[in-house]
């Protein structure tokens, strides 16, 4: 490609790529008017089998029984789905209640309240959970756990110990030393919105495609083998998409951001493989798993074999390293209904519960699957990322069987100008930031 006398000797490295998104594609599912009980049932079944096998090692002496089979004072283990009763959780019935209670109808950011309590439910019944060891602020509705405790006189189940599913088994991390190869994670481009800085984004594209920088920098850039855009790529003004018919001039206002994004993606796809995931603000379906953005939105970029439109959540394997990521909806929802010190802790919890989005379908939109739950994490990823967060954070967690996972919280690029670069050799990551402020 060198047009000048000096041939650029830099060649971009390549990697092997395998998409594991099949579970998240809705293609085969049919909607026959079913509701969500089936997905809960599937989840319970799936995880209960798993938990039973774990319980036998955890508490071999204690009997396992169903909720209905609880006897007062007898220690046993019960397995079921947790339900968290939240006082502040918005309920449609509140809007119709005759007397407006003190609870405001306006949604706060976090619906937790001190009076929340947990209930364990299985096919036979439910029982309220008591005791100090189980804290409602940590759990949310939809998790399947095993509880060891006994029934009290009041009819509650006093919890002595909690067993979560734990990190799933992980495939071997390919340890052979290899060259540095990088994968870039970015999210929240918000192209077309007023608070996005196109110059910053152009700098980003120039850097990873190898236009910017001197030899050294371009050689670093040539080691970037993959880019994943984790949602919220398009920032269409919210006021336009309110269901009203649009005047023709408004139509172009909607189409402009997408065209702009297509041009930008075209520049990236012409250089290296690109995955784009839909996010909460993208023109994709609302409920999880979000289906891939339609290729017709990107007529220019979709022509490239390097362009790949993926589902949200997105699971793929690069050079035998497994990645799993979402555009942020699962963690944002957890943040509304539970408490943790940072986003990475929410992510760690989802891994330990072995479920990507436990609050789906309770408070997170989800497709009513009938016989499977695609959010169940079967195999532990090596890198788990969540997009559209407030800041860049990263941590490694370890599992009981030697699993290790790099957790990454990818910030919104339009606000922070920060993308994340992960080194495939050792799963180290660093931030890639861009600044364009001139004044002051």
């Amino acid at each position: 490609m060198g047009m000048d006398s000096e041939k650029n000797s830099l060649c971009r490295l390549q990697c092997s790529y395998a998409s594991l998104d099949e579970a998240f594609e809705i293609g085969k599912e049919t909607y026959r008017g079913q509701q969500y009980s089936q997905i809960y049932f599937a989840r319970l079944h799936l995880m209960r089998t798993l938990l039973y096998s774990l319980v036998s090692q955890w508490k071999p002496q204690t009997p396992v029984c169903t909720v209905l089979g609880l006897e007062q004072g007898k220690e046993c283990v019960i397995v079921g789905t947790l339900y968290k009763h939240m006082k502040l959780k918005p309920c449609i019935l509140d809007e119709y209640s005759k007397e407006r209670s003190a609870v405001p109808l306006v949604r706060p950011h976090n619906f937790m309240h001190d009076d929340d309590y947990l209930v364990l439910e299985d096919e036979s019944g439910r029982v309220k959970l008591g005791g100090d060891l189980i804290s409602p602020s940590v759990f949310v509705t939809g998790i399947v756990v095993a509880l060891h405790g006994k029934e009290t006189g009041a009819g509650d189940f006093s919890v002595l110990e909690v067993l979560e599913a734990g990190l799933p088994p992980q495939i071997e991390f390919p340890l052979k030393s290899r060259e540095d190869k990088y994968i870039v994670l970015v999210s929240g481009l918000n192209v077309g919105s007023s608070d996005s800085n196109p110059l910053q984004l152009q700098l980003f594209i120039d850097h990873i495609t190898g236009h910017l920088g001197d030899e050294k920098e371009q050689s670093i850039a040539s080691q970037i083998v993959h880019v994943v855009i984790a949602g919220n790529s398009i920032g269409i003004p919210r006021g336009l998409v309110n269901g009203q018919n649009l005047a023709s001039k408004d139509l172009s206002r909607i189409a402009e951001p997408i065209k702009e994004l297509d041009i930008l993606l075209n520049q990236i796809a012409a250089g290296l493989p690109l995955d784009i995931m839909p996010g909460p603000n993208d023109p994709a379906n609302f409920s999880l798993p979000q289906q891939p953005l339609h290729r017709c939105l990107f007529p220019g970029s979709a022509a490239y074999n390097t362009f790949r439109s993926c589902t949200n959540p997105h699971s793929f394997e690069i050079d035998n390293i497994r990645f799993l990521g979402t555009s942020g909806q699962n963690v944002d929802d957890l943040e509304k209904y539970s408490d943790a010190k940072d986003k990475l802790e929410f992510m760690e919890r989802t891994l330990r519960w072995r479920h990507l989005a436990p609050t789906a379908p309770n408070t997170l939109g989800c497709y009513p699957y009938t016989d499977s739950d695609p959010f169940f994490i079967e195999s532990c990823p090596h890198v788990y990322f969540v997009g559209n967060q407030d800041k860049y954070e990263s941590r490694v967690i370890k599992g009981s069987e030697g699993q290790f996972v790099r957790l990454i919280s990818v910030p919104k690029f339009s606000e922070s100008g920060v993308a994340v670069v992960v080194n495939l050799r050792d799963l180290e990551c660093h931030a890639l930031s861009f600044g364009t402020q001139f004044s002051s």
Partner: protein
Amino acid sequence: MAQTQTLALVEEIESLVSDKLQVVSYKWLSRNYMISSNEAKRLLQEFVEKHDGGLEVVYALSGWLKGSHPSYHIRLVTGPKLAEAQQEFDGNCSIQVYSVQASIPKDPAVLWNAEFIQAEELFKQPWSVDNCLRDNRFCGISSSFVQRNVDGMPVVAATPLTKASVGIGQTKMNVLQPQKNIAHDTIPRADLKSEDVVKDVKSESNGTGSTGVHDQVNKPSEDKEKVVPAGKKKAQSDKSGSSTGGSLASFWGRASAKPKPSSVPVESSNTVSNHNATEDAQASAREADGSGDDDNQDVTVRRSSNRKRRVVFDLSDEDEDVVSLSSPELPKKQSSQDSKQKDNKSSEKATLNSDTKRENKPMAKEEKSSDKKANQPFQEELSVINKCTNNGKSSSEKPQSCAPDISVNKDSTKNAAPGSPKRRKVMKTRIDERGREVTEVVWEGEETEAKKADKVATKKSENNVSTNSVNSSSGPATKKTPAVANTTGKGSKKTVNKDPKQGNILSFFKRV
């Protein structure tokens, strides 16, 4: 680069910056003068050195930041702030000239504008052109594995279609030009997608991820692309008679993703059906199926037998992707499951049905299924229809039905399929009793009879009888048609009813 060339460029830069007050960034420079990015940066560096005053320079600094967390930072700074910005970096940072301009704008994004306008221009070039935007040729890194599929949609109509059986269509294609590239491209890409995804997964899981893989992926998709564009072109060629609105709307309809390869033929046939293609680009529809040859023969046969506008191809479209002429949204294939593209003039069908019951059955089957397999029976039917055609019936009837209406009346390719239960939404133009030209969206096939309740009863009954099985599916389609008719507001009057000209069709038969 020759010294003189450099000098000339430097002067040009100066004039651009000083006189036209344009922001000259290295990227803009490289794309404009076809030099590599590195070269452009060097050029700007020289320029800055030569012209010291009166110009603002923006530098791009990049390097690792000081701090506990490793962070690679790239930022743009103006000349005066260069030194202090360098302090923020840990160790050496590379400094390069990013752009020169007459003055620093308040909003940094203004720097990006000129570059983006240029990129947009490059982006808008015809698909087959491989420009510097599209192949990223000026960057410092070569990526040999990247391939771009230029679909077979030639800009100039004269390009021979790979599988286009319709030689006749070619001439028409020359006429058409207003290609909505985006709309067109979506379809081949839609097909591509499924192919690519499937193949990519397979191939990449093998750990190759190299060009070889891509070749495999690209080939079939390219074939399909060629086929589809062919169909599209034909469709377009026929715009003259039919309402352009219909053709435009059909683009949207076609733009729905068709993951199945069968979608390609379907789509092409869809487009065809929507436009009155004398050539009956149905051939194109057939091609994808591989039955193109048969179709061609059919077509030729048809032509010989009285201007068969309708090609049996319509039968093959069991796949939806129905070009809903009225629907501006991009219908997913489910959108019109039952709206098959089978264009059948109901009248013709009626007569045909009565004549060729056996054809109806396979067609009915087709209607139901949305698989490519259905194409097979259609193919057979084609041959059957051919025979019928030769009898001077079915196929000939359809085109003829148009004929009496008006020469302008170009129906979307109605399949001459005798009594084909395929329903197809077609735009039909005719002169009504008051002498006005009426364009309406009409469901051909058993649909039509349902719609045209007030029409020739005989025909309807015939159709109903023959296509009982399809009636269920025709129901929703029927409902759709009025909606379609309402929404296709292209300025032409829409009447859901078939006009009394249906009677003329019969007269045509008599003529034959």
